[in-house]
C-alpha cells in the first residue's frame, strides 16, 4: 500500500515493534492511529509504510502479556473489497492481524482505538483522494461466514472475562462495606478521646494510631493520614538514620526529601515506603535525638541534614564563592559547588535572607550578588 493523504490530523502516537500481518512478521515499527486509519511505518525504512482504514475493522480485543510474550491487540477485519489498492499481500487466508506491543503502551492504544471505533469519525469526514472504503448501505456488515464464528467465540470469551471482573467487584464492594464500618468506628473513638470520655491511656492512643495506619484512615484529630508517632514510624526513623549517614556525608551533609525517597526505595527493592511514611518518620528524627533532622525551607522544600551540618556556616562559604565570581545564578553556583540546583537555590536564598547576598531578578534569570549595601557604606 502506498501512502494516502488524509484530511484530519493525527490522533496519537505510540510505539509498537512488531505487526504480525497475515502470518509474516514485520519488525520494529511505529503504529499510528488517525481518525481514519491505522498506519504502520517501519522504523528503519521510513518509506515502507502500510495502512488499514478503520472502516475495515470489525472488532478488536486485547490479549494480556504473558511470560515471554508481549501484550497484543487482535484486530479482526472485513474481507478485502474488490477495489482495494495494491498492498504488501494480494490475498491471505486470515481475517485478522495481531499488533504486538514490545515496548508497552498497549493499554492507552487500545483505549484510543476503541474510542475511534465507537465514534466512527471517518464516516463524517470524507477524505480527499480516492481512498477505498467499505461504504455500502450499512457500513461493512457484509461478512463471510468464518468471521461470524470467530466473533461469537470472542463474545463468549469477553463475557467470561467480564464475569471474573464483576465477581471481583462484588467481593470488593463487600469488603468496602466492612472497611466503612471501621472508618465510622474510628471517628467515634477519636471524638471520645478528644472529649476525654472514658479513661484512655497513652498506650491505647498509640495503639489506636497504629490501627488507623493499618487501615489507611486519616487521623480525625490531627488530619494526618496514619498520624505521626506510631511505633512503625519510630522504627523507620532509626533505620533511616543508619541508612542515610554515609550518603549525606557524600553529598555535603544535606539532601532533598525527593532524593532520600528515591535512594531509600531503590535500596529496599521491596516493601517500599510511601511518601507519607517517609515524611512522618523524618518528623520524628529530632525528637528521637538521632544524628539527622528534617528541615523545611520557606519555599516548602524539605531536606534532611546531618545534625552536624550547619547551613548557616555554609552560607558564609557561599558568600565567598559568589564574591570570587562577582555574581552567580543558582545553576552556576550548583555546578561550581557540586550540589543539586534545588539545594543551591535554597542556600543562596538563605544567604539573601541573612543579608549577605542581593538578588538581581530579570528575564535572564535570578542572579545573586554580594550585598554591597551592607558592607560598603
Amino acid at each position, binding site marked *: 500500500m502506498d501512502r494516502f493523504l488524509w484530511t484530519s490530523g493525527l490522533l496519537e502516537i505510540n510505539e509498537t515493534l512488531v505487526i504480525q500481518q497475515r502470518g509474516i512478521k514485520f519488525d520494529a515499527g511505529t503504529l499510528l492511529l488517525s481518525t481514519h486509519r491505522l498506519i504502520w511505518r517501519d522504523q528503519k525504512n521510513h518509506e515502507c509504510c502500510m495502512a488499514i482504514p478503520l472502516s475495515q475493522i470489525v472488532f478488536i480485543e486485547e490479549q494480556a502479556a504473558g511470560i515471554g510474550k508481549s501484550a497484543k491487540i487482535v484486530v479482526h477485519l472485513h474481507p478485502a473489497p474488490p477495489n482495494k489498492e495494491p498492498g504488501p499481500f494480494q490475498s491471505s487466508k486470515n481475517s485478522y492481524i495481531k499488533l504486538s506491543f514490545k515496548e508497552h503502551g498497549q493499554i492507552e492504544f487500545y483505549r484510543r482505538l476503541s474510542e475511534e471505533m465507537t465514534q466512527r469519525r471517518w464516516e463524517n469526514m470524507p477524505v480527499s483522494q480516492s481512498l477505498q472504503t467499505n461504504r455500502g448501505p450499512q457500513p461493512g456488515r457484509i461478512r463471510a461466514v468464518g468471521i461470524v464464528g470467530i466473533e461469537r467465540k470472542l463474545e463468549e470469551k469477553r463475557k467470561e472475562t467480564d464475569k*471474573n471482573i464483576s465477581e471481583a467487584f462484588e467481593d470488593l464492594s463487600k469488603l468496602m462495606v466492612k472497611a466503612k464500618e471501621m472508618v465510622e468506628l*474510628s471517628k467515634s473513638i477519636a471524638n*471520645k478521646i478528644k472529649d476525654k470520655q472514658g479513661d484512655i491511656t497513652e498506650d491505647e492512643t498509640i495503639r489506636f494510631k497504629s490501627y488507623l495506619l493499618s487501615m*489507611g484512615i*486519616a487521623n480525625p484529630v490531627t488530619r494526618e493520614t496514619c498520624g505521626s508517632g506510631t511505633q512503625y514510624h519510630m522504627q523507620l526513623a532509626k533505620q533511616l538514620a543508619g541508612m542515610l549517614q554515609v550518603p549525606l556525608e557524600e553529598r555535603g551533609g544535606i539532601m532533598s*526529601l*525527593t532524593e532520600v525517597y*528515591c535512594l531509600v526505595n531503590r535500596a529496599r527493592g521491596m516493601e517500599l515506603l510511601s511518601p507519607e511514611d517517609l515524611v512522618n518518620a523524618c518528623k520524628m528524627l529530632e525528637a528521637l535525638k538521632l544524628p539527622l533532622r528534617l528541615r523545611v525551607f520557606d519555599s516548602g522544600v524539605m531536606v534532611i541534614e546531618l545534625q552536624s551540618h550547619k547551613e548557616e556556616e555554609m552560607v558564609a562559604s557561599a558568600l565567598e564563592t559568589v564574591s570570587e565570581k562577582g555574581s552567580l545564578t543558582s545553576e552556576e553556583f550548583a555546578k561550581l559547588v557540586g550540589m543539586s540546583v534545588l539545594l543551591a537555590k535554597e542556600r543562596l536564598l538563605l544567604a539573601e535572607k541573612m543579608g549577605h547576598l542581593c538578588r538581581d531578578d530579570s528575564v535572564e534569570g535570578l542572579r545573586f550578588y554580594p550585598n554591597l549595601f551592607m558592607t560598603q557604606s
Partner: protein
Amino acid sequence: MHRRGVGAGAIAKKKLAEAKYKERGTVLAEDQLAQMSKQLDMFKSNLEEFASKHKQEIRKNPEFRVQFQDMCATIGVDPLASGKGFWSEMLGVGDFYYELGVQIIEVCLALKHRNGGLITLEELHQQVLKGRGKFAQDVSQDDLIRAIKKLKALGTGFGIIPVGGTYLIQSVPAELNMDHTVVLQLAEKNGYVTVSDIKASLKWETERARQVLEHLLKEGLAWLDLQAPGEARYWLPALFTDLYSQEITAEEAREALP
C-alpha cells in the same frame, strides 16, 4: 503519662463511671477500642481472602485499580498512605505506586534541563514506560496521576495542571498562578504563544500578557524566539514532543499547520 488506677478504690470509681455512662447510653472509648481491635483482625482475614482471589486482577487491570481507588476514597480510606497499611501489604498496591513515584522523579529530573520542570502527561507516560523495560507491568495515565498525587507529600513542588484535555506535570517548585496556567493552556495548541494570541483569546492588556510570559521565561519553562515571522514567539519545550514525536514528513507538516 498516667496509668489507669489500680486498687479497690479505683475499681469502685471505674464501676461508678461505667454505670453513669451506661445510663446515658454511651459506650466507653476503651470498649470501642477493644471492639475495633477485633474488627481489625476480622477485616485483615477478609482482605487476605480477597487478595488470594483477586490480587492478580489489581495487578493486571488498570480499570479495576481505578475502581478500587475510587471506592476507597468514597469511604474515607487511603490505601496508599503507608507501606505498612493492610492494603499495601496484602494487595501489593503500595509497592506498585511507590516504585512508580521513583521512576517519575527520575524521568522529570533527567528532562528538567530541557523543559524547565514542566512535562506533558503523555511524554512522561512514554518515558516511564521506556524506563520500565519490556517485562514490567504496564501502567496507565491514571496510575501516574495517583503516584504523583502521593509525591506531593515530599514538599518539592509536584503539581498537576490541566491543559486542553490532558495534563502538564510540574516537578519543580516554580510558582504558577492562574494567569500562568491559563497561558500554558493557550500554548498547548501550537506549542507556542505570542502576546497577540493572549490579547485576542484572553482579552488581557499587553502588560499583563508580557508579565506572565516573562515569568515563564525566567522559570525556564518558555523559550523566546525572536526570529519568528511577525512577532516574537514564546515556545513551551514541555509541549514540543506532543507535536514533533509524530515524525511527520515535510508534506504532512505543511498540511497539518493552519
